[in-house]
């Protein structure tokens, strides 16, 4: 286990210090984008399409403009004058900012109403008269592939059908060959439905263009302020917005989970409106808008897992159909259109794998939000973990035993996976053993046998996942060509207190505490003496933001290395002050001392003061350091989750009796914060497993676009999460740390699904897609009677 090097007062790594940011959040003093009120500020509200697919015949603004306080109605034609009615997506597709002739999904932005206040703006939006000619929407992605299906994107040159791209990785022929000769092959079509991040704070912005200075200031709920600044400069450069004139400020954020990475059309409209009007324009998405736009998942995966009759896995193949909605606006910063999906070979040692994917257009909201997962890891892990359990059921082997027999062994790391990743470290056996001990696995197996003998339905589900987080190495990632490093800039003041700034942006992760702890660990300056600042592109160093569990792997590493640069400079100053040569100086946390004479010492605070007052001749004064960290590899946290459920046959009711989550995220900065992350993530894992999923009808209408019907679980629905850790440090990260925030979201759904399906196994049920609700279970039970 990890041993703390610092005292609790210094609060370096391993101390569960309380979060510095919580006082202001708990006292209601957080400052969110909707708290921003600028002089002369106007409000913008979007008019949205009631149809999933329709021609726009006309837009009549007259009645809206007649309402006192309504100042403007902006349509696609208005933006077209500035060539701003379309925008590029990160994945080289195009997305409408506002339409001129066609709407492509229900609730798509049709036009924007600008008014003096929000109430007036909403009345104005209702008064805009839009004449539509509805068309038959394509909702089912398989139907989008029909030869006779209408072409959804005739605006794109060379687009002959509704396919967006084909991607593949691995050796198809060899994999097919191994599968065809295998003793056992299990197959399943697994669907992960669309889900929303449903963060408490919706999206929003305040755009303020000053015609006199030519500067654009945008307060934005964004996880990636610097990247957004560059994107705005590239997209709107032709109207005169260049990057040095653009300032993005991400204030406090009430939950991101990937949903605050994309550039939404309304941001562009608000910026354009402020640019034209010369006044600040605020747009705050309401809950209904938030729930019908932006989504995650939506992968239909045909899986085949081949093994020997004893259960030694030989090959895995997955062919996926991805429903991207009407444009591929995936918030995916990797160089691969499917992100990290090729992690789908899992925690197991075998040679042959092949993954392919076809992406198609449909009349649904565009997306690809990586909801609390590095892009497409949740889909990948669900596929392999369901299939491993299916294999265990098929050959009648205990699923834990099957995993032990197939795990990549501790001594095999760094491990080259069949689809091209190099896993950094792990001890999968130890992690699963710990989970089994904690839950009392063998006792539950006995109890299950007894219950089954009485005709009762009880299930045990395991998930032993490997995650891939910390985007990322420049060989795998970039945004518009910008490598996915991140940055830290430390200024130690003459009094020994510090200010540190980062290119990331916390949305609840606790950066103000954990970054301070990293610096405390490295420099010995108490974490309480270190202020952390992020989110303002005018003041913080360039970075790519916070998502993909990347803050600790990238900016956290940058902090450690910048601190080490300072420590090196401090050593020279200490030698000067102690009148010895640099080679004679040694370091222990917070203090330089003379080798062999520990009472001859200078504290880091004394050294910092000297850096401004009494520095060696020829040395540059000051005590500051900056580092930009391009990670050599991703980090590969892993975990073993075990879930025990009971299902009532008569009603389909599902009772999650136990859930044990053992995570291995390497060295831990703040155990309490990690615990909080895991609890939140597990709850966001039970959500798609048992509650959430966007439902569409045949016309493309979203059927559950309110929180009444989109079932975000609460504390009442959450079982008592039992958590624990094994620690296998990352060999390439300066602190031995790995990302953790996404592991529970990725690992929980298959554990829960496996448990429920295991409970239903005596009835002949072999698979259910998530969300597995009591109604779905009941229907399945009837179908198997």
């Amino acid at each position, binding site marked *: 286990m990890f041993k703390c090097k610092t005292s609790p007062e210094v609060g370096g790594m391993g101390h569960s210090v309380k979060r510095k940011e919580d006082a202001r959040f708990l006292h209601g003093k957080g400052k969110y984008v909707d708290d921003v009120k600028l002089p002369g500020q106007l409000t913008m509200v979007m008019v949205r399409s009631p149809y999933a697919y329709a021609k726009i015949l006309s837009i009549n603004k007259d009645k809206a403009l007649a309402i006192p306080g309504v100042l403007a109605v902006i349509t696609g034609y208005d933006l077209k004058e500035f060539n701003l009615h379309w925008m590029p997506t990160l994945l080289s597709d195009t997305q409408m900012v506002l339409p001129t002739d066609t709407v492509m999904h229900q609730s798509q932005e049709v036009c924007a109403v600008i008014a003096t206040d929000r109430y007036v703006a909403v009345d104005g939006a*209702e008064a805009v008269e839009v004449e539509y000619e509805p068309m038959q929407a394509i909702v089912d992605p398989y139907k989008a592939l029909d030869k006779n299906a209408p072409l959804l994107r005739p605006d794109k040159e060379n687009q002959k059908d509704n396919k967006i791209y084909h991607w593949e990785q691995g050796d198809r022929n060899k994999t097919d060959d191994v599968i065809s000769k295998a003793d056992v092959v299990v197959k399943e079509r697994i669907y992960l439905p669309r889900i929303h991040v449903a963060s408490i704070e919706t999206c929003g912005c305040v755009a303020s263009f000053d015609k006199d200075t030519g500067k654009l200031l945008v307060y934005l709920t964004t996880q990636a302020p610097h990247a957004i600044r560059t994107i705005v400069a590239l997209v709107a450069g032709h109207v005169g917005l260049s990057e040095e004139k653009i300032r993005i400020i991400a204030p406090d954020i009430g939950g991101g989970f990937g949903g605050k990475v994309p550039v939404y059309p309304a941001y562009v409209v608000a910026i354009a409106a402020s640019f034209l009007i010369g006044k600040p324009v605020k747009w705050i998405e309401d809950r209904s808008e938030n729930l019908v736009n932006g989504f995650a998942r939506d992968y239909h995966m045909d899986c085949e897992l081949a093994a020997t009759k004893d259960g030694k896995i030989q090959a895995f193949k997955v062919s996926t159909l991805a429903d991207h909605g009407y444009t591929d606006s995936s918030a995916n910063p990797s160089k691969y259109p499917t992100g990290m999906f090729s992690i789908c070979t899992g925690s197991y040692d075998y040679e042959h794998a092949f993954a392919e994917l076809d992406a198609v257009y449909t009349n649904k909201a565009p997306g690809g939000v990586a909801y609390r997962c590095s892009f497409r890891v949740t889909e990948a892990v669900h596929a392999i973990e369901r299939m491993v359990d299916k294999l265990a059921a098929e050959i009648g082997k205990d699923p834990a035993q099957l995993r032990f027999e197939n795990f990549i062994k501790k001594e095999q790391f760094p491990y080259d996976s069949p689809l091209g990743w190099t896993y950094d470290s792990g001890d999968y056996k130890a992690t699963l053993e710990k989970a089994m001990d904690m839950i009392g696995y063998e006792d539950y197996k006995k109890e299950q046998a007894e219950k089954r003998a009485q005709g009762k339905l009880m299930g045990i589900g395991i998930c032993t996942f490997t995650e891939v987080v910390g985007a990322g190495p420049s060989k795998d990632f970039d945004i518009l060509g910008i490598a996915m490093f991140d940055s830290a800039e430390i200024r130690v003041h003459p009094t020994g207190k510090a200010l540190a700034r980062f290119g990331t942006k916390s949305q609840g992760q606790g950066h103000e505490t954990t970054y301070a702890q990293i610096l405390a660990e490295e420099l010995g300056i108490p974490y309480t003496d270190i202020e952390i600042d992020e989110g303002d592109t005018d003041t913080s160093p360039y970075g790519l933001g916070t998502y993909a569990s990347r803050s600790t792997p990238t900016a956290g590493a940058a902090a450690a290395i910048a601190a080490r640069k300072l420590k090196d400079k401090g050593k020279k100053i200490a030698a000067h002050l102690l009148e010895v040569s640099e080679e004679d100086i040694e370091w222990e946390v917070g203090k330089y001392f003379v080798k062999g004479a520990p009472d001859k010492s200078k504290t880091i605070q004394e050294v910092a003061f000297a850096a401004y007052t009494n520095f060696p001749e020829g040395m540059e004064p000051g005590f500051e350091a900056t580092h930009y960290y391009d990670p050599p590899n991703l980090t590969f946290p892993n975990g073993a989750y075990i879930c025990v459920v009971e299902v009532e046959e008569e009603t389909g009711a599902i009772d999650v009796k136990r859930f044990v989550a053992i995570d291995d995220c390497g060295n831990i900065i703040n155990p309490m914060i990690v615990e909080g992350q895991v609890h939140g993530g597990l709850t966001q894992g039970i959500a798609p497993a048992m509650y959430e999923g966007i439902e569409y009808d045949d016309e493309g209408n979203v059927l559950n676009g309110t929180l009444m019907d989109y*079932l975000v679980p609460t504390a009442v629905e959450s079982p008592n999460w039992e958590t624990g850790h094994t620690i296998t440090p990352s060999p390439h990260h300066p602190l031995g740390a790995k990302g953790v925030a996404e592991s529970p979201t990725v690992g929980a759904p298959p554990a829960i699904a496996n448990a429920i399906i295991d409970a239903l196994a005596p009835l002949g049920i072999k698979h259910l897609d998530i969300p597995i609700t*009591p109604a779905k279970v009941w229907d399945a039970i009837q179908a198997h009677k």
Partner: protein
Amino acid sequence: MIPSNFTYHKATSIQDAIALSKTHGEEAKYMSGGHSLLPMMKLRFASPEHIIDISKIDGLSYIKEDGETLKLGALTTQTEMEYSSLIKEKYDIFSDSVKLTADPSVRNLGTIGGNIAHGDAANDQPALMLALRATVIAEGIDGKKSIPIDEFFHGFYMTALDASDVLVEIQIPKAKKGSGGAYHKVERKAGDYATAGVAIHIELDGHGTCQQIGIGLTNVSAVPMRLERGEEILRGQKITEDLIKQVGKIASEDAEPTSDLRGSEAYKRSIVNTITQRMIRLALERAQK
């Protein structure tokens, strides 16, 4: 999520409310807790031009037994019901139900009168009122009227109340020895409307024979529904396991659920069967105490 323009009126008395309603006619709507009406207004499913807030009228919030009758003031909140010692002691059916209705912040404002005046079969209280043979007391332009619950619910969001009628009181036969009740609903998550719910009220005589029985169903029909055929099976009988099963089957047959996001029609029929049986057993157990 912003309602269209409306004028807010605060009624100071029942007569004041009725006068305001008379002035503004069909364009006016009474509001008590507002927790059904306001969401509809925010979604612009309803756009009344005048809101007459009756929630501040004095004297309409009480829970008391008066002679042979339990009287509930229409403005009594669900939370007041939840914490009433009288309810806790003698009326389990209400204790069961209020805990399952929405969440504490809704229950703090949502009233018992509003819950039934809204005329929504998805609300929990209509089923209870049907099971308990309640009488609804209303005051309107023509004075006071008393409406038996079986004549109260007319259709989806439609009741026997005229536009100017203020629901002032609910009267229920007082709990007596040998009576017991129970309510349960299956919900998708805490605070959800019922997938299906069942309210049972049983009165036994000294020999354990069922004298009176009320069975109300939640959210399995367009109009709140009393399971008359099921009641007939049990009335005048000693309640046996066999009869309970028969009634459950009748509930699944007579309910009129539709397939929706809460589940298939068949699932709902099965659920209503199961809960009907379980609640009869629970109510019987309570009546026998």
